[in-house]
C-alpha cells in the first residue's frame, strides 16, 4: 500500500501520475490555505481514478481519536481513498505508521527540505507508538 500525508506531497505524486492508495490532506500547504481540492479532482480525472472520500477533524499539534478511527477504517479500502482533515493533518502520519500493513510505504513532507519515504516495519511502528503516546497524554505538549 502506498499512502501520502500532506497536500504538497500528494500533489507531487499525482503530478507524476502516481495515485496513492490513501492520501491525507487538509487543504493547506505550510499552513497557508490552498484550493487543492479542484486540482486533486482534475489530476485524479486525468489519471482515470475514482476516489472515495472520508473526512475527520484534528486540531493542530494533536492526534484525535476520531482521526485514528477514520484512518483505521480507510485502511480497509477499497482504494484509493482521500481523507480530508478539518484542522491539521501533519501528525497523522504517526497513526498511519502504526496501523498500515507491513511493507507499506508512507510518504510525507518535510517542510522546506523534501519528502520522506518510510517503509513500514516494526521499528518505525514502535517509534510512532511512543510518539503518539507522548503527544496524546500531553507529555509532549506545553501550554502557552
Amino acid at each position: 500500500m502506498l499512502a501520502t500525508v500532506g497536500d504538497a506531497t500528494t500533489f507531487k505524486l499525482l503530478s507524476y501520475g502516481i495515485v496513492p492508495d490513501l492520501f491525507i490532506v487538509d487543504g493547506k500547504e505550510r499552513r497557508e490555505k490552498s484550493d487543492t481540492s479542484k486540482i486533486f479532482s482534475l489530476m485524479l480525472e486525468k489519471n482515470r481514478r475514482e476516489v472515495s472520500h472520508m473526512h475527520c477533524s484534528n486540531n493542530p499539534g494533536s492526534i484525535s481519536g476520531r482521526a485514528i478511527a477514520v484512518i483505521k477504517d480507510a485502511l480497509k479500502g477499497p482504494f484509493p481513498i482521500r481523507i480530508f482533515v478539518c484542522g491539521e493533518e501533519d501528525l497523522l502520519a504517526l497513526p498511519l505508521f502504526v496501523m498500515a500493513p507491513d511493507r507499506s510505504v508512507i510518504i510525507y513532507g518535510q517542510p522546506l527540505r523534501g519528502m520522506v519515504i518510510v517503509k513500514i516495519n516494526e521499528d518505525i511502528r514502535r517509534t510512532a507508538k511512543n510518539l503518539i503516546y507522548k503527544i496524546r497524554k500531553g507529555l509532549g505538549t506545553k501550554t502557552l
Partner: protein
Amino acid sequence: MVLHPKIIRILKEPLGELILNDDITKKKLGITLEMLEC
C-alpha cells in the same frame, strides 16, 4: 496546544529516507518506490 520542543526536534528529523526537494524527479521517485517494492 503547542508541541513540546523535544517532540518537535524528533519530528523535524526524517523518520525515513529523505529525498531533497531539488532531487525529487518522477524517475527518482519511481526508482525508489520500485526498490521498496511498492
